[in-house]
């Protein structure tokens, strides 16, 4: 039985590769609906495979009951949008579909109770990075977009069959590893006793404010001024840590060097972007080719 399910995995990968190869932009578009049909079949097969492989599994995931509906919903949106990103012939629409990928995976993070990551994704990816992409798309759009010869590179994909084969070969390998639940899921680490909420609160957050605190600070004239700290939410459970609090503790306690290096990388890329933007382009080359 398990071998057949393994074959189902490979068949689904081949179907996915075929559907993607059919959907990628070509000079002579074939029959429109075969690609999406095959892709839906591949996805449905994969999910059926997952549901079947769960029969022997029988472990509790610990996620909220009912979240499986949202998993299928958000995964479906993410995958369909990802296919639209790589098959759409107009770059602006591809960027907009990528926003859908980001939003759907933020939904997946909410299912996984990673609220901080979900909102960071929406703000940084959907807000900052995508706006940069849209600006560059507008800056670098051809003024003579009417002639089709200059736009041909948008309409035709290079090596769609070979690329799909390579990508879905990788997918088949990845899936056959991640569906080997005996080695992946069974090795779930036991909860570290130093990593529980109670231990973390006791070791680092023993005197975190649970109600609004009044303090006095000196103003510019040297007179003490009363300052009231913002009150925590009224339904705060003092024995539990929020997702953002846990990530903050882990980031600053376990990875201080990585944090400093991330700051250096951001600074270097800031300087590098300015240097690249100020680079002079030789006029004769631009005139010769443009």
């Amino acid at each position, binding site marked *: 039985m398990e071998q057949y399910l393994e074959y189902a995995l490979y068949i689904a990968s081949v179907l996915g590769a075929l559907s993607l190869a059919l959907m990628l932009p070509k000079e002579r578009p074939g029959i429109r609906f075969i690609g999406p049909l095959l892709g839906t079949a591949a996805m449905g097969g994969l999910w059926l495979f997952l549901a079947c492989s769960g029969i022997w599994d029988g472990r509790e995931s610990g996620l909220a009951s009912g979240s499986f509906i949202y998993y299928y919903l958000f995964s479906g949106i993410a995958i369909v949008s990802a296919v639209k990103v790589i098959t759409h012939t107009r770059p602006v629409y591809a960027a907009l579909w990528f926003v859908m990928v980001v939003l759907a995976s933020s939904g997946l993070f909410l299912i996984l109770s*990673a609220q901080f990551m979900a909102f960071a994704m929406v703000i940084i990816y959907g807000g900052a990075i995508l706006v940069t992409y849209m600006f560059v798309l507008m800056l*670098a759009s051809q003024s003579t977009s009417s002639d089709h010869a200059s736009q041909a590179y948008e309409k035709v994909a290079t090596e769609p069959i070979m690329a799909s084969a390579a990508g879905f070969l990788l997918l088949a390998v990845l899936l056959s590893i*991640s569906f080997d639940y005996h080695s992946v899921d069974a090795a779930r680490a036991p909860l570290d006793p130093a990593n529980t909420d109670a231990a973390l609160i006791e070791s680092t957050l023993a005197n975190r404010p649970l109600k609004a605190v009044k303090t006095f600070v000196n103003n510019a004239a040297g007179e003490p001024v009363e300052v009231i700290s913002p009150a925590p939410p009224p339904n705060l459970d003092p024995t539990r840590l929020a997702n953002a609090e846990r*990530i903050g503790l882990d980031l600053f306690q376990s990875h201080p060097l990585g944090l400093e290096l991330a700051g250096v990388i951001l600074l270097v890329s800031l300087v590098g972007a300015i240097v690249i933007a100020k680079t002079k382009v030789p006029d004769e080359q631009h005139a010769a080719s443009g």
Partner: protein
Amino acid sequence: MPETVMNSLTLSHFLMTGAILFCLGLVGFITRRNLIIMFLCTEMMFQGVVVTLVAFSRFHLNDTGQTFVIFVLTIAAAEAALALGLVVLLFRRKGTLDSLVWSQLSG
């Protein structure tokens, strides 16, 4: 199919979504010729990796996976700034975003 099987989510569910996003990004990077879309596809590969990291973090009850997502975000932001600056520079030289224009590079 029993209902209990259908409505239980396992780690494999999320790993599958992450793997599919990564592979779609890879195929897009190889096939598309627009430089901006190519970099958009690398961002999609990042998305796949991030979904995988957060899923591992949740199922192993270890916050380090989510901390690494912050670093992934940092690298993605730095990469977007530098890569898009380069793309604008290349566009100013040749007047097109076609990556095959640059296939004859020498020295």
